[in-house]
């Protein structure tokens, strides 16, 4: 239930609760427990109000929603006797309230199953379904056959049943007795379930006790009342035993509400703490964390810690970049003669030299860990840089080849066309028709040659890539691709050449690996601060050359659902 229905039902439930409270307090109908004594009045209003309130709050929280709803329903149905006993009230309202009196044991059983986390089990689902159906059937039949006039055990609502069709006193009495017996059984079941789960909770005793034991208490009250109804009907609030049963149920409901509220508050606190911890874990890496901790401990916000990188034989900062020269007094922390870290204090006045020197021994292990991490980061960025160099070298090679083709072979062929035309003109001048035709044929071949050279060059390295025109390059690729390419771009803006080159060759190489039976390949390019490229369908991981290109620029490659996603920063 989300949105409007949830808000609506919350408001309705709250409204009913308020009306019931008003009814109980103002009318104090004589045919209810509330009328007999003040403390019973309190025990009618407070537990039910608490159950509805806590239930409504819980029903808005995802995991506890079901518990909340059940608690609200339990509170409202246990309040319904007040409506039943309202002598001056509208008969329809009283009759409807009469319909609800059979529900509390079943609701309690459901609630107990939810609390013990067994409501999903097959037997539980079946049992609940049967119980709800039985209660529904019972309510229906009772509504149409019970005539309060003829019920000698009636004490509360003895006048009106709006739904009455045909009075069958014997059946009505049997139904009432049947309900009492069933209530006893269900109540006993709830008590057993609660106690058993509590015993098995082990170290989780206290938390379990909050909600389970009150469940059992309510169940005991219900069982007691049911037993009394069977043994010594009619119900008489003056009798101590009946009062005791009622009080037990009410007290149990109150404890259940407070227990649920406390448990819920505890869970929320834990969730918040977990979220905070997750966030701080995410933000912090060991190296920066040590620096921050030391800065706080020594009360010097400008404190800097650099770590020794063995291979570089130099200090690097927490993120692995080469460290700048220290400004201010610094102390080098060494372990067994090997430097580990260098702590630089920006404010010599606040951190005396001997304190700074003492940092070493105090933080040795943390510093060593942080050093390893900083070292790893430095290594990774070095690796990335070397990959970038390899990729760039390969691209340079291709560009050189393309340029050689263009400047060399293509230009020569163009020059050849000039010569051929000169030849043709000369032949035409002397009227040599046959020769002209021969030359025309040669010109055709040479034109084809030019096109072929152009295709080769463009396949090596599209000339427009050097200027960052990715869209134009991809359009040419689409022209020549054997598999139809469906190209969509958000902007024709020029990109930094490195980005355009990486994106182009990613598409080209992925296309190259696409089986020729593919009907069409969709390529989408989104140009912004980040270039987003998506190619589908792609069934195989593109392979090291694409990874190297993208990785060299610090971008990401992802293959999900037959679609390849590449992101490259255009900054």
């Amino acid at each position: 239930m989300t949105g409007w229905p949830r808000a609506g039902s919350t408001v309705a439930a709250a409204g009913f609760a308020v009306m019931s409270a008003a009814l109980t307090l103002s009318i104090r109908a004589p045919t209810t427990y509330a009328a007999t004594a003040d403390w019973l009045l309190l025990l009618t209003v407070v537990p039910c109000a608490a159950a509805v309130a806590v239930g409504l709050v819980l029903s808005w929280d995802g995991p506890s929603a079901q518990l909340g709803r059940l608690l609200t329903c339990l509170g409202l149905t246990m309040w319904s006797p007040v409506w039943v006993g309202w002598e001056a009230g509208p008969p329809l309202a009283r009759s409807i309230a009469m319909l609800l009196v059979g529900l509390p044991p079943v609701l309690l059983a459901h609630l107990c199953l939810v609390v013990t986390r067994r409501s999903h089990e097959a037997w539980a689902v079946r049992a609940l379904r049967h119980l709800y159906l039985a209660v529904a059937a019972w309510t229906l039949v009772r509504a149409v056959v019970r005539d309060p006039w003829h019920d000698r055990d009636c004490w509360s609502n003895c006048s009106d049943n709006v739904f009455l069709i045909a009075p069958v006193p014997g059946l009505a009495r049997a139904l009432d007795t049947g309900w009492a017996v069933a209530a006893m059984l269900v109540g006993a079941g709830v008590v057993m379930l609660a106690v058993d789960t509590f015993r098995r909770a082990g170290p989780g005793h206290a938390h379990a006790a909050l909600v389970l034991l009150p469940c059992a208490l309510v169940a005991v009250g219900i069982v007691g009342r049911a037993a009394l109804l069977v043994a010594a009907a009619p119900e008489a609030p003056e009798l101590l035993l009946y009062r005791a049963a009622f009080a037990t149920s009410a007290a149990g409901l109150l404890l259940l509400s407070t227990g649920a509220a406390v448990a819920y508050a505890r869970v929320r606190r834990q969730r918040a703490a977990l979220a905070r911890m997750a966030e701080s874990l995410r933000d912090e890496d060991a190296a920066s964390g040590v620096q921050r901790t030391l800065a706080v401990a020594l009360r010097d916000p400008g404190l800097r810690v650099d770590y020794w990188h063995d291979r570089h034989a130099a200090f690097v900062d927490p993120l692995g970049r080469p460290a700048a020269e220290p400004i201010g007094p610094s102390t080098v922390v060494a372990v067994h003669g090997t430097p580990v870290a260098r702590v630089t204090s920006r404010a010599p006045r606040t951190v005396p030299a001997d304190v700074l020197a003492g940092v070493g021994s105090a933080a040795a292990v943390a510093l060593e860990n942080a050093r390893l991490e900083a070292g790893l980061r430095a290594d990774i960025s070095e690796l990335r840089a070397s990959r970038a160099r390899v990729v760039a070298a390969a691209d340079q090679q291709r560009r050189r080849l393309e340029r050689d083709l263009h400047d060399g072979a293509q230009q020569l062929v163009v020059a050849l066309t000039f010569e051929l035309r000169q030849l043709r003109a000369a032949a035409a001048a002397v009227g040599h028709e046959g020769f002209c035709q021969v030359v025309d044929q040669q010109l055709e071949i040479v034109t084809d040659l030019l096109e072929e050279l152009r295709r080769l060059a463009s396949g090596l390295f599209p000339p427009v890539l050097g200027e960052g025109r990715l869209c134009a390059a991809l359009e040419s690729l689409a022209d020549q691709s054997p598999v139809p390419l469906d190209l969509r771009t958000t902007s024709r803006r020029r990109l930094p050449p490195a980005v355009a080159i990486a994106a182009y060759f990613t598409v080209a190489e992925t296309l190259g690996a696409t089986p020729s039976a593919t009907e069409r390949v969709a390529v989408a390019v989104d140009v912004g601060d980040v270039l987003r490229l998506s190619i589908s369908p792609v069934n195989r991981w593109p392979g090291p050359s694409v990874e190297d290109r993208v990785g060299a620029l610090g971008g990401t490659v992802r293959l999900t659902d037959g679609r390849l996603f590449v992101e490259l920063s255009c900054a």
Partner: protein
Amino acid sequence: MRVIVAEDTLLVREGISRVLRQASIDVVAELQDAGTLLREVALQQPDVAIVDIRMPPTHTDEGLVAARRIRLEHPATAVLVLSAFVEASYATDLLEGHPEGTGYLLKDRISDPAVLVDALLRVAEGETVVDPTIVATLFRRRRQGEPLAALTERERSVLGLVAEGMSNRGISARLQITERTVEAHIAAVFDKLGLTTSPTTNRRVLAALTFLRG
């Protein structure tokens, strides 16, 4: 007509100059890079500058940049840009803003004196010239889309010739129809494609090219 030729490959440069001289066109300078080109144009004030796109120092698109500058700074000098590449984006970049007196030809065709001289004359008169191969490539790409299907065969031919920079007279001569019919076809084409017809021949070239490029 006075022409400057800027092309960094010796053989091709000499080939072009020879063709022009044989057509009685005055080649006032033969250059190899974009820097000297701009100086010489300022000095000599030719009618047309023939410029190769790829030239020293970077061998990317210096020629294109230089051509645009020439059009801006010396409006009386037309430019004919030569390229070995069928690259529609070069054409649209070149024509953007100043399509008049600008042309883009593939090197495949310039050995034919008829083609070269015709293109020179057209740009010298302030028209626009776009190599038919480029227009054909764009048409091939565009075929996959919807809008072209709404045009008749004749209208498609007219659109292609408009994209090549031809004037109404040139189109009527090529397709053997009257100029009035040409105007009617162009109006119909632009209307069907949702383009705004421009009063000048040159602007509509850009409109057509941009539309075809998608």
